[in-house]
């Protein structure tokens, strides 16, 4: 039965496109019907006239029959709807200017929403590109008393998990991809190399395409010199050569045998895409710098919570077996969520702000439609007298706003398509969690459709209700000139203004907060400066530089080479430099005192070369500098930053005190000889202004050599020439070494502010759009009000009203509404601030905050936003109101 109904429906839809044929056909059928009937009647002895009458009566009326036939053959609801749309289209075409303003406003609102929605979709909601990827989880350990902070994951815990779990169908571990030197075919380049267990490929369900996966025995130091190439590397670097399997490549000077090629579809998205995969040496435990990442695929029927309980049990048993007091608990979280939640907050925040803009656009358009409805009230009245029901009038008004919304939606989609690309490009790669393409998929299109319908209702319902409620008599009697808005209409328009103003204030206040946060960030003491200086990084790896002496020698020679270059003023290097975020943590304790906690204090360690403090203009607060007199054999010394002094010594004088480097078995950090504190330095920014201050210590590079360092070179040479000269200096020492991360210090500082600058620009753009919309809305309302009252103003002027009085009369209502909106907006902003406040700020160790050093109730931003909005309000209402002041009483009265 259902099938038959659908068939009938389809036929009906199809038929409506051949309507004239069908009508003719049915007329012919009726004619033949009547003719036959009349013939029969004549045969039965009736007169011609009688026969005809009887046949017609029997039929039940020609027109009624045709009408019900028509209803059955087409779809009456669809017909009416299409008729309404056609009518609406004609009306909109007649008023192109109005249509353009409304559609443009909507397109901006919908376009921005489309863009942010596609970003949300591609970044947060889209499943990771692995089969059944929502069953993938990240397993890690967090501090028992601070679940937000991940702890380092020792190898032994992973091995215990992998051996004892039942809740996972597969568990794998990897290290974060590291930048390493690939040498093959005579050239070398930096590529991302990822260490992983063979089980990672199984866990992700993306098997190795050519060749083979790693073998269990290859996950051991010594046997681990095998590699799987990423498909992209294989294609570009090795020209898809299938014979590469079995051949050696050199990574950081060491030889690896290629055993397999990963499939092209293997993309992680949430970490830098590795070019080469090598096995992780699990046993015997290798030195672990930063701990493992563990991913698992939940077994059928297992839940993340059950898996967590199981892993936690294994973790505690393992810690007990190792005789370590466990400070951690296990955590199991959805893999996609784990990697995206850090950015989710700011993305949702911007989505909210962008939705506000759409709301303002809709409110604005509602005001415009309302005014237009009023201008057409005579037409409505006429149609009502001709028999249009109120429902018909509402339907037609809504058809118009629907059409407008869809035009806006269409234009908005195009705009959004462009904007989402611009967004993603503008957003620095490191600010977005996933390396995905943003595109318009079906969900985004459905979202736009929903948004368009939503906006058409939002902006259409109120005006439709008003314009359909026409008093036929009143309107028609008054005639064209007598058309004026009733009190209800003006009240509604003013209400719309109030709503608009309050929404705009929220955005303006937000922009103010971001601006003052940005300014504060810019002025925040960075603790260092080296205008125009160039930085780059070198990473010596391989057997040639395994010994500390070799590293010391290489970097001393390179420093001398660079210092000797013409145009170079000064040069230094360190295992890390401020804002590069490339430092290492170590654990220290004050000698001869009980540890404040089991592990001592975690500090950031810089191994710095001579003149480090001078070149980077870092301030020494007390004691002496690290210099070239500190050698491998001289007494071991250290400089603490102010923050570390505070943490370790409080208000005590640290100079001369001894610090122990605490061995940390969990991280495989061996104990080192103690150091004596010889100086105190000012704090510097390690990642950017939005961070909790770090405890940092500076030790001489000669006493703590490292394979990788950052150089800082100040010179008056142009950048290109300097880089070229340095590169040849590097190559003259060893042609296999590569410079990377080449940046000026100013770029480094700029990059650290990139996220904040982006936030500011985005919010400021939204606020500017809101401001523009609000001013258009108020301008329109006041202009309309003045036009309506021209006659009244004329009479008032004739009766002796002063221009100021007239002006006040013209703008007082709009201004009052605006002021009310301001008040309401202040309340909304503060309420929103209360809800969002904590989430807008930095959470230590998460780096997710967006605001720096400014209160969510910042009175300066609030006052500035109010004043700016008020100024726009006054200006936007004053310009059209001037017309009221210049009304010529004679002209106004004659206008009747």
């Amino acid at each position, binding site marked *: 039965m259902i099938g038959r109904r659908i068939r*009938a429906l389809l036929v009906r839809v199809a038929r409506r496109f051949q309507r004239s044929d069908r009508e003719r056909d049915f007329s012919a059928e*009726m004619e033949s*019907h009547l003719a036959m009937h009349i013939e029969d009647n004549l045969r039965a002895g009736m007169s011609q006239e009688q026969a005809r009458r009887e046949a017609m009566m029997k039929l*039940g009326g020609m027109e009624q029959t045709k009408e*019900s036939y028509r209803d059955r*053959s087409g779809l009456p609801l669809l017909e009416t709807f299409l008729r309404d749309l056609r009518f609406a289209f004609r009306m909109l075409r007649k008023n192109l200017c109005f249509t353009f303003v409304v559609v443009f406003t909507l397109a901006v609102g919908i376009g921005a929403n489309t863009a942010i929605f596609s970003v949300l979709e591609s970044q947060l909601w889209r499943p990771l590109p692995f089969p059944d990827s929502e069953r993938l989880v990240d397993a890690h350990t967090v501090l028992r008393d601070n679940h937000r902070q991940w702890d380092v994951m020792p190898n032994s815990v992973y091995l215990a998990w992998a051996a004892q779990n039942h809740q996972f169908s597969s568990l794998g571990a990897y290290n974060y991809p590291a930048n390493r030197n690939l040498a093959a075919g005579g050239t070398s380049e930096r590529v991302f190399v990822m260490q992983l267990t063979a089980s990672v490929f199984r866990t992700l369900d993306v098997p190795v395409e050519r060749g083979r996966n790693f073998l269990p025995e290859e996950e051991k130091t010594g046997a681990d010199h095998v590699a799987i190439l990423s498909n992209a590397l294989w294609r570009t670097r090795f020209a898809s050569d299938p014979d590469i399997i079995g051949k050696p490549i050199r990574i950081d000077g060491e030889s690896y045998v290629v055993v397999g090629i990963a499939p092209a579809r293997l993309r992680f998205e949430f970490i830098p895409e590795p070019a080469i995969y090598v096995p992780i040496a699990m046993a015997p435990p290798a030195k672990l710098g930063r701990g493992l990442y563990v991913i698992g695929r939940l077994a059928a029927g297992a839940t993340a919570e059950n898996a967590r309980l199981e892993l936690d049990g294994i973790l505690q048993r393992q810690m007990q077996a190792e005789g370590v007091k466990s400070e951690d608990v296990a955590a199991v979280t959805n893999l996609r969520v784990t990697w995206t939640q850090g950015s989710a907050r700011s993305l949702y925040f911007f989505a909210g702000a962008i939705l506000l803009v759409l709301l303002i656009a809709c409110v604005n358009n509602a005001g415009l439609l309302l005014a237009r409805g009023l201008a057409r009230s005579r037409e409505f009245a006429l149609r009502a007298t001709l028999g249009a029901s109120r429902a018909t009038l509402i339907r037609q008004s809504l058809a118009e706003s629907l059409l407008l919304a869809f035009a806006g939606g269409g234009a908005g989609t195009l705009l959004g398509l462009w904007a989402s690309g611009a967004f993603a490009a503008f957003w620095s790669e490191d600010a977005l969690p996933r390396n995905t393409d943003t595109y318009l998929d079906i969900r985004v299109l459905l979202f736009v459709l929903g948004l368009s319908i939503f906006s058409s209702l939002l902006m259409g319902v109120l005006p439709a209700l008003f314009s359909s409620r026409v008093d036929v008599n009143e309107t028609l009697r008054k005639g064209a000139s007598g058309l004026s808005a009733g009190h209800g209409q003006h009240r509604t328009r003013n209400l719309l203004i109030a709503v608009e103003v309050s929404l705009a204030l929220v955005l303006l206040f937000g922009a103010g907060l971001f601006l003052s946060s940005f300014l504060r960030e810019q002025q925040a003491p960075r603790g260092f400066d080296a205008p125009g200086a160039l930085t780059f990084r070198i990473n010596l790896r391989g057997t040639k530089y395994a010994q500390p002496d070799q590293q010391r020698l290489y970097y001393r020679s390179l420093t001398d080479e660079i210092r000797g270059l013409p145009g170079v003023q000064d040069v230094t290097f360190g295992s890390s430099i401020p804002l590069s975020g490339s430092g290492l943590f170590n654990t220290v304790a004050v000698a001869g005192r009980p540890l404040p906690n089991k592990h001592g204090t975690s500090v950031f360690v810089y191994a710095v070369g001579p003149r480090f403090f001078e070149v980077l203009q870092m301030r020494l607060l007390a004691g002496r500098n690290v210099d070239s007199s500190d050698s491998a054999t001289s007494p071991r010394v250290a400089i603490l930053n102010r923050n570390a002094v505070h943490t370790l010594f409080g208000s005590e004088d640290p100079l001369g005190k001894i610090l122990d480097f605490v061995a940390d078995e969990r991280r495989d950090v061996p104990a080192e000889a103690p150091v004596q504190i010889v100086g105190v330095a000012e704090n510097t920014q390690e990642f950017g202004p939005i961070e909790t201050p770090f405890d940092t210590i500076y030790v001489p590079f000669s006493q703590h050599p490292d394979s990788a360092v950052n150089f800082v070179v100040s010179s008056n040479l142009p950048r290109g020439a300097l880089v070229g000269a340095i590169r040849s200096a590097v190559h003259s020492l060893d042609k296999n070494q590569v410079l990377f991360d080449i940046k000026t210090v100013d770029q480094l500082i700029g990059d650290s502010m990139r996220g904040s600058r982006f936030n500011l620009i985005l919010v400021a753009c939204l606020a500017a759009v809101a401001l523009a919309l609000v001013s258009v809305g108020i301008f329109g309302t006041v202009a309309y009000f003045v036009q309506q009252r021209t006659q009244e103003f004329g009479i008032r002027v004739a009766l002796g009203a002063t221009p100021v009085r007239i002006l006040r009369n013209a703008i007082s209502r709009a201004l009052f509404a605006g002021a009310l909106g301001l008040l309401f907006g202040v309340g909304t902003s503060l309420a929103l601030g209360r809800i969002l406040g904590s989430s807008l700020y930095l959470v230590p160790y998460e780096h997710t905050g967006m605001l720096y050093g400014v209160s969510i109730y910042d009175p300066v931003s609030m006052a500035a936003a109010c004043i700016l909005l008020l100024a726009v309000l006054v200006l936007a209402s004053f310009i059209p109101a001037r017309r009221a002041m210049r009304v010529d009483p004679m002209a106004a009265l004659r206008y009747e």
Partner: protein
Amino acid sequence: MGEKKDVWQGTLALMVLKTLQAMGPLHGYGIARRIEQTSGDLLIVNYGTLYPALLKLEQEGYISSEWGVSDNNRKAKYYKLTRAGRKQLNKEERDWEQTTAILARFLAPGEERS
């Protein structure tokens, strides 16, 4: 326009199908007359309502139509049963008989059942 009409349309459709089965291809006027005659003139068919019903049956694929020439050499649109229509007629006949049988039992004078 209420439920009454639906019931009527339902039975009208059955009558149309039955008529076409009995008479073979027939035009609208003929169907109307035939229904009137069969009902023994008890049923006054408003001929106009027949056409939307015919259209509906055609849309549902139970009957098909074709222009032809009547006995009196007049152009007329002829309707005939399709295969689906024949099946539907059988089904509806059965349903109808069942319904009337049930109703008949209810309306039969006080028959005791143990």
